[in-house]
């Protein structure tokens, strides 16, 4: 009995620490957008005074999250039940931000976009049958008319 408990704990620790350092950072960038995506109150380069933004005509939020999870699932075939343990990545790339920004530009080509807040976070989680390490990044952006 004692050996079984230790074996389970050791397996748990190994799987848990296997995830350490494996999860990619969640990155906010819009490097594939071929238009300025401004952050902060200043609009023009070479003109360091704050430019009053145009009226807010819209806003959007986008978030990406990356995690590594080990989970078990059961499948049944007739009377045979098979338990499968899988490890899987969920990796959402920064392109999700590009898509959100480009959609806004398509809706209003003359508008400017300002990222007001960047939300970040991470945790390491034991949750039911999953062992997870997770981090995320998200933005709150406003769309301004000219």
């Amino acid at each position, binding site marked *: 009995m004692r050996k079984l*408990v230790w074996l389970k*704990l050791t397996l*748990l*620790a190994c799987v*848990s*620490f296997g995830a350490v*350092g*494996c*999860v*990619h*950072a*969640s*990155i*906010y*960038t*819009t*490097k*594939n*957008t*071929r*238009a*300025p*995506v*401004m*952050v*902060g*109150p*200043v609009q*023009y*380069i*070479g*003109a*360091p005074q704050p430019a009053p933004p145009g009226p807010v005509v819209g806003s959007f939020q986008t978030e990406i999250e990356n995690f590594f*999870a080990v*989970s078990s699932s059961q499948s049944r075939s007739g009377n045979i039940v098979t338990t499968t343990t899988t*490890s*899987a*990545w*969920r*990796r*959402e790339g920064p*392109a*999700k931000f590009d898509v959100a920004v*480009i959609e806004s530009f398509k809706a209003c080509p003359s508008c*400017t976009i300002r990222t007001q*807040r*960047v*939300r*970040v*976070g*991470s*945790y*390491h*989680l*034991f*949750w039911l*049958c999953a062992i997870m*390490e997770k*981090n995320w*990044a998200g933005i709150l952006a406003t769309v301004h008319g000219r």
Partner: protein
Amino acid sequence: MGKTLIKILAVVALAAPLVGCAGARGELAFDQLRFPVSSSAFIYAPDGRPVTVRELQRTGQLVWVERVWGIFWSWIPLSGTVDVSAPMNDQIARAGGQGVINLRVESENCGINYVPLLNLLPIYPGCTYVTITGDIVRLRGPVMAPPPPPGAPVPAAFVPTNKLNEAVNQRLLERPPQGGAMTPPPPPPNYSVPPQPPPSYSVPPQPPPQPTPPTPTDGTSLPPQPTSK
């Protein structure tokens, strides 16, 4: 003693699935920035035109690492909203830049989130590393000296180029619209370059996705990237 330890470990193992582990969350603000910053490779010129690397000169690299804290497995943020404007302003000014393009904000777990058993405690503080990077740039190209204001003495001493550029750009922005017929139009400012084709805002084609293992949740996911660590 041995049995007690086993019982404690068993209780911990049984309780572990019911709770979370250490983590943090927070918000970054940029409200006090004195320079324009863009998270793409484009930025607005003084005339409102989007300009990119061909018309910009890279003068340095912006790097800033911030940490945000939380307790109760990241549910309660301790850091709140962190304004990172001051260190960014300092780095841009020190590099002689006029703005930042290609801003990136990276979020990842801190090492203390992995301390076993302790990270189960809700009051154990969790942490998130936030790394902010970007390219510090300024407008490229020679800039004409601004005409001296009426009555101002002509400077005879050395004027740093960056101060000169700022003065020129400032003066160009303050120039009133040319509508009168009595004065000849001034020559166009030479910080501009031939017009670029209109931006398409498009994302370049991505390589075909690799087959991915099933993920435990729904939603859009991208193909796995090679591990960098």
